[in-house]
Structures are given as C-alpha cells and as structure tokens.
C-alpha cells in the first residue's frame, strides 16, 4: 500500500510526457522520504511498451470505452484506486484534464485540492499576475495535488515495469458531457508543454511574419506562442496565447520577439527558464525579465539567427 498515487494521462494511446515527468518527481520525493513505492492509475488502453518502469502498482482500466476522457468514469476509476491503495496524496499533471476532474474528486474524496503547485512537495504558486508567490497549506486527510510542469528535464529512470492491477469500468448513472471527438493538432508542439517557445507579439507585424517564428520553433523542436495583441488581431489562435488570460509556459527557453512584456503577458512565463528578448525598443519592459536581450528589428534579426542556429546544428 502506497501513500502516493499518480494519475497518468494518455491521449490516443500515448502517455503524456508531463505525466511521466510527474511520476518521476513523485517517485524521487517518496524515495528520499522513505515513503516508496508509489502507485499510479491509468484510464484507457495504451500502446505496447508504453507502461512506465517504476516499482509499485499500476491500477489500469484498459477498456477501450475509456480511451476518450469522460469525467464520471475517470472519477470513478481514481476513487477506486485511492480506496484500494489507501492513498493519501493524489497527483495530477496540471492541464485541461486536471482542471476538469480534480475539483470533482476533491469534493467526492473530501480532499484538500492544491492546484497549480510548483512541485509535488509543498504548494507554491504564482498569483496576482506573477507579482507574488503564494504558499498553501492543506488541511484534510486526503490531498490532491495538481502539479505544474516547470523548466528542467526529468530523469525517467528504468527498471521493472509496474505491477498491473486491472480495474473494471464502473459507469456512473449520468455520464455528463460526452466527448465525441478529439482533434489533435499536427506539427508544432503545444505551447504549454514545449521545452522551447518562440513567442511573437504585435511587433511581428502580421500573420505572415509568424512564418519566421514557426521556422525557428521547428528548428529548435519547440512551439510558437503569441501575445494577446497578436491573438486579438487574428494572427494566431487563442490556444497559443501566453499570459494571464492564456497559457502558462514551462519551457527551458523562451524567445520573445516583438513582445513588449506587459504584466499580463509575464504572468504566463513565471515558470519559464531562460528568457531571450528581441525588440526594437531598448526600454521595453520585457528586457527587465529577460536573461539575454537583443535590440533589433526582428525581421532582420530572426533570419540571421535562424541561419546561425542551422549552422550550429550541422
């Protein structure tokens, strides 16, 4: 019986990196505290060879009906795993799924819900557009942590696959909203999950100008992000917006091109690693939160930068 239970998220049969990173972080923490082994729970079938290697039990409901997210069946599964394992700490990688599922579970399990925490160990979260850092204390027998991913890679570690305990599907009375279709974008990585984000703002000048950013992003294996100005002008989809009313990035490298660095934008990069800013205005606020800066017109700087990166990759 483990104290720690990690929810593993799959989409189209592939486990999410964020889940696997979280599993490693929790395993490491539990190891240090002498509280291992840990357990995990997984809804839906996954591809051959996908199951993670970690000592402990994996509660798996492999029924194909759980391939797509469903609030009620997923909740029932996690509740069952918590009960069987006697878990006191339940972890989710923060994202669209945890945002939907964790509040429901916290009520059903009478648990304290720690959302958007910086790590599995204690809960620190940027608040007020990143102007402050808040620490939260839980007060309940069971605690649910939704953990934001952050800059820095996680060692996965090898070893034996987990011991699998098959769980049956227990469909609730009212399934609630039914997921009919999952449409995954092809091409560039997701802005919230990518290790490198190349972001553009009003300074990019138009939808066309983002071609350069896409080129650099794909060269670095990253994603394109956008300021709200760029999104509201219709140059980029909202899914790419970074900031207070957009996504939070956890990239190791954030390259801001033609972004002024408004507080609402900075709210989204509080957890980014190295920040690089390219801007024509030497007084742009973005430089105050950047590690490296280059005062230049992005339309000439980016092609040269792309060329230089290409050279390096050769």
């Amino acid at each position, binding site marked *: 019986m483990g104290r720690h239970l990690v929810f593993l998220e799959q989409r189209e049969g592939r486990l999410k990196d964020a889940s696997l990173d979280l599993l490693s972080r929790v395993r490491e923490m539990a190891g240090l505290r002498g509280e291992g082994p840990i357990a995990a729970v997984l809804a839906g079938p996954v591809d051959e060879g996908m199951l993670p290697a970690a000592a402990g039990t994996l509660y798996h409901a492999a029924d194909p009906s759980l391939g797509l997210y469903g609030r009620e069946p997923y909740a029932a599964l996690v509740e069952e795993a918590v009960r069987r394992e006697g878990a006191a700490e339940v972890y989710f990688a923060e*994202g669209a799924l945890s945002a939907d599922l964790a509040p429901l579970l916290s009520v059903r399990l009478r648990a304290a819900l720690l959302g958007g925490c910086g790590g599995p160990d204690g809960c620190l979260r940027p608040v007020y557009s990143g102007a402050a850092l*808040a620490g939260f204390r839980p007060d309940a027998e069971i605690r649910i942590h939704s953990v934001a991913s952050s800059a820095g890679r996680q060692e996965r570690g090898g070893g034996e696959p987990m011991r699998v305990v098959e769980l049956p599907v227990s469909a609730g009375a009212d399934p609630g909203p039914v*997921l009919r279709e999952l449409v995954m974008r092809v091409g560039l990585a997701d802005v919230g999950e990518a290790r490198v984000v190349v972001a553009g703002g009003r300074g990019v000048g138009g939808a066309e100008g983002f071609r350069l950013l896409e080129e650099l992003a794909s060269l670095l294996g990253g994603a394109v992000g956008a300021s709200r100005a760029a999104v509201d002008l219709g140059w980029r989809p909202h899914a790419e917006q970074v900031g207070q009313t957009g996504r939070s990035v956890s990239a190791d490298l954030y390259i801001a091109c033609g972004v002024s660095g408004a507080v609402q934008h900075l709210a989204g990069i509080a957890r980014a690693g190295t920040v690089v800013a390219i801007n024509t205005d030497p007084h742009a606020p973005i430089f105050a939160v950047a590690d490296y800066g280059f005062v230049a017109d992005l339309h000439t700087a980016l092609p040269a930068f792309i060329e230089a990166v290409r050279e390096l990759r050769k």
Partner: protein
Amino acid sequence: MEIAVCVTLVPDTASVIGFRDGALDTSRISEVLNPYDEYALEEALLMRERQGDATVRVFSVAPASKKPLLQKALAMGADRLVIVEGPESCDPWQTASILREAFRAVYGEAVPELVLCGRESTDFRSGEVPGMLATLLGVPSLSGVTKLEAAPDGTLRLEREIEGGLERFEARLPILLSAEKGLNTPRKTSMKGVMEARKKPVEVLSARDVPEPRVSLESLRPAERHKECRMAGDVRELVRLLRKGEVL
C-alpha cells in the same frame, strides 16, 4: 429557464500589486469583474436572447459594500444580483459551499438549468470553484469551454482546448460550464444599461454554516522577477552568449 452566473472581483491588472510591511498593499489596487466571468455572463445573456423566457441571476461571494462594482453585471444585462457575504477566504471549497447554500436559498431544491462561471479568477487562478460547485449541486460540468452551440432539440455542442488540440463534447441541460477566453466577445455597458442597472433587484444574503477551509494561505511574498539582462550587439554575439549559457 433559470440561468445562474457566478462572478468575483479581482484586482484590475493595470493596478500595482505591491507589498508593504510583508503584506499585500491594497491601497493601490482597484477591483474589476474577473475577465473570465464576463465571458460567462455574455454567454448567459446570449442564451437568454435565444430562449426568450429566461432569468439571468448573478451570484457573488463578496462584502455588500462591493455592490457598485458588481452592478456592472446588471449593466451588462443580467436581471438580478445576489451578493453573499461570507468570511474573507481564498479557499475554493469554502466559496463553492457558500454558493451552493445561496443557490438553495434562492432556488430551493431546484437547480438552475444552466450555471456559468469564469474558468478561473485572475488573482489566485485556482479554477476550482466551478467544478466543486457542480459536484455539490449534483450537475455535470465542463471546464474551459471555448464554444457553445445549442441545437433545437436542446443538445449542447461544446468545445474546449486541451494541450495540443481540442475536444468536442455533446451535453444536455442542466449543466455547469466554465468559460474560457474565445467563447464570445463580452458586450460593453451602455449609459442606458448603467441607468437601468440601478433599478434592478439586488439581494444580500449572509453565509451560514460555512465549512472549515481545506486549504489556507500560508505565505504570500513578492516574486523576484527582475533579471540581469545581458545585451548582445549583434546576432553573432547573441548566439555566442546563448551557447556560453548552454541554452543553445
């Protein structure tokens, strides 16, 4: 049809979030309706326009003194406002419980057909109240909705963004939805709307039997954001700096 919208007030993002003597300096903060709640309210108003016969009631857990700020929701077009006075708390579980009680006081055991909330409040960004409230009300819910279409047979077609893609759902009323940016464009308030808002009914309730918090604020400190920025003179130097910093 009964439509409920839950709103909260947050610091205007233009206001300065500063600290004095280790505590948040509220003197320079002005409050506004949480931007996400405006998307929720707009969607409620659109639904009322489609339905014809619907009442849009706005709920907020706040001190009664905040009435003038909350009246913006009435100026946008909501029919009634319910302010629930409760303990000052940042625990979403307490807030959801207080809202649940307020719904009981207003609707009895019935539950409104449609409940709309903002995806999260921009101050603490927990985004937990909607899902908790839905569970307490015993209705299904979906968070972060970016598209809502109501088919003639009453079926709702919903969309929401997920990491790397989007999900399309089908659902029925009653339901609680939390609104994400992109769902709609909130209407501006007009002079006429503001005048009319003053005549619309405002109820003030006080929260009773508030449960113990499950999460409390342990510390709040200013975040150190300022970095020492190393400036590059040209692209070549930029690349050299980034390589030296082991970024490239």
